[in-house]
């Protein structure tokens, strides 16, 4: 059967974000501008980064995303995330390895509501006609400098964003425990562009990404979307295969 991840998140539970409860209210995030770069990475460098419950994507790839949220319940902020392509059971997912938010308030809320392993830092999103750029720094050090080169218009229907999985501690059955949380935003596209990914600087350690090295660029997109960070619907046992260890927390959204 398919390979499984080898990471036991329960061994380092103290390092995970902690949620006060699983009743997070949804955030509406209109007209977000999302730069997303997909890049293949050597399989050997992803060893140990994926929870035991999940299957690795083959070939291994990561998703680098820098997003400008002009409106949110905590005001405007930029967010950069690194996700590892994977499978939760039969479904494609991006497992969140690391994230940087441009405001302390956003970082605190994203950690506490959805278990996103986010720290505060400097996140810039710059849009030009010949390229869209994202840069991230912490403590004066650049940890990501990336761009989408030569953006060309595509239809929003051509773009597929896969759902996220985070690892966090949260109360369940009367006990706060490590678990995997599905974060499944919805998107309404206003504009979509596609181009070549370029990464000038990437500090894997700063993204909790072990020894990951970026190898073969797949594609880059930049889209303007209405999106959300939804209520939590599914959590997963981090040590059991997802198809055996998934718990539904609440029903699907009314429009699904």
């Amino acid at each position, binding site marked *: *059967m*398919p390979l499984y991840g080898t990471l036991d998140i329960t061994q380092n539970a103290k390092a995970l974000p902690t949620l006060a409860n699983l009743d997070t209210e949804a955030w509406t995030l209109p007209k977000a501008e999302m730069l997303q770069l997909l890049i293949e990475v050597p399989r050997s460098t992803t060893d140990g980064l994926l929870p035991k419950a999940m299957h690795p994507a083959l070939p291994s790839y990561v998703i680098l995303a820098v997003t400008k949220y002009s409106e949110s319940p905590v005001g405007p902020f930029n967010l950069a995330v690194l996700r590892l392509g994977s499978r939760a059971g*039969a479904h*494609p997912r991006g497992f969140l390895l690391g994230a940087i938010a441009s405001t302390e308030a956003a970082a605190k809320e994203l950690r506490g509501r959805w278990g996103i392993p986010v720290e505060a830092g400097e996140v810039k999103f710059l849009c030009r006609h010949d390229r869209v750029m994202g840069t991230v720094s912490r403590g004066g050090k650049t940890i990501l400098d990336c761009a989408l080169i030569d953006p060309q218009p595509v239809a929003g229907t051509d773009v*597929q964003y896969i759902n996220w999985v985070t690892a966090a501690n949260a109360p369940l059955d009367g006990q706060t425990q490590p678990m995997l949380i599905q974060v499944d935003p919805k998107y309404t596209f206003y504009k979509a562009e596609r181009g070549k990914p370029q990464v000038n600087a990437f500090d894997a350690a700063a993204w909790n990404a072990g020894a990951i090295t970026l190898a073969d660029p797949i594609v880059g997109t930049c889209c303007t979307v209405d999106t959300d960070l939804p209520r939590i619907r599914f959590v997963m046992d981090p040590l059991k295969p997802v198809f055996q260890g998934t718990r539904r927390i609440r029903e699907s959204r009314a429009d699904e």
Partner: protein
Amino acid sequence: MKFGLFYEISIPRPWTPEKERTVYNNCLEQVKLADELGFDHVWAVEHHFLEEYSHCSAPELFLTACAVLTKNIQVGHGIVVCVPEFNHPIKIAERTATLDILSGGRLHVGTGRSATWTELGGFRANPDTTKKSWDEFVRCLPKMWMQETFSYQGEFWSMPERTILPKPYQKPHPPMWVAVTSPGTEIDAADRGLGSLGLSFAGFDEQEKKIKEYRRRIKSCEPVGAFVNEQVATTNFLFCHEDEKTGVEMGKRLGNTFNYLATQLISTREVFSSPSYQSLGLLPALRRAATGPDANEQQTEGMAYGDPARIIRAVKKWESLGVDCINFILNANEVVPQDQVMASLRLFAKEVMPVFAKGSAAKVAAE
């Protein structure tokens, strides 16, 4: 109704040399038996890099072995990836002609363009252009087979005038098909006079719509070859057992395993935003079905597993929708022991096939 075998050649980890050889040998043993039992076709896919799901990257070699071991069963090269980074069209014409000769004119040629990033990215092929390159290839192939000399200047490939040798044994050329997974490909098949090689496991309603549209459009087609190959084939799982419960349980295990492996594939659309891959092909249906490798939920309707009576009912339904041929997947990751695969084939041939044999007493009685 015709019946065929359909091989992805799925091999579970760990991959020892003996395991890969055993699975290939198992497949050949099945094909030999199927030939003796009167099955019509054996198809083999072309897939690359798809771990466990398909180790069938050189189907022309496997099919050559099939042809040499058998007398009557027709060999389906299905599908040849018609993308220049995968296969040069001259080589496709040469290989298929050779296989047609070696099989004594038993070759069918399926065409397609690949659906996974794992494969397209592996060959550094551009997903945006695979539909166009497929279109060029399928228009060139019949000419390369039939014309004494051939030259070509196209968008994806070109060649000066040469004689492409050998020529196929069948005249004017082998029947041509296209793999139909994405919505709309059945129209591509019909418009070009190609057989519709259905590779999805969609339910009756969806298949019926596709077949009706195919039959309607092919009436006014401009065939790419010398003749119209109006045929609709679909894919199914086969496990036939005297006891219905045993048959259904093993059939579900086979289907669940196959579906779960298939859902691990990285569809092109998942990672590469392209107007050429707007659909996820067969994956949405598989993901709905594949809750896990040991799932026990109801699978897609019309599956050919259970006892002969149950399978006859399913096949009759497909026949009533206009399906001409059902190609069966017999195993996935070797979850069905080889002796049970062989017994299933024998029972199917004994109890089910006669009901669908043209002019047979069993068919007349059943009608």
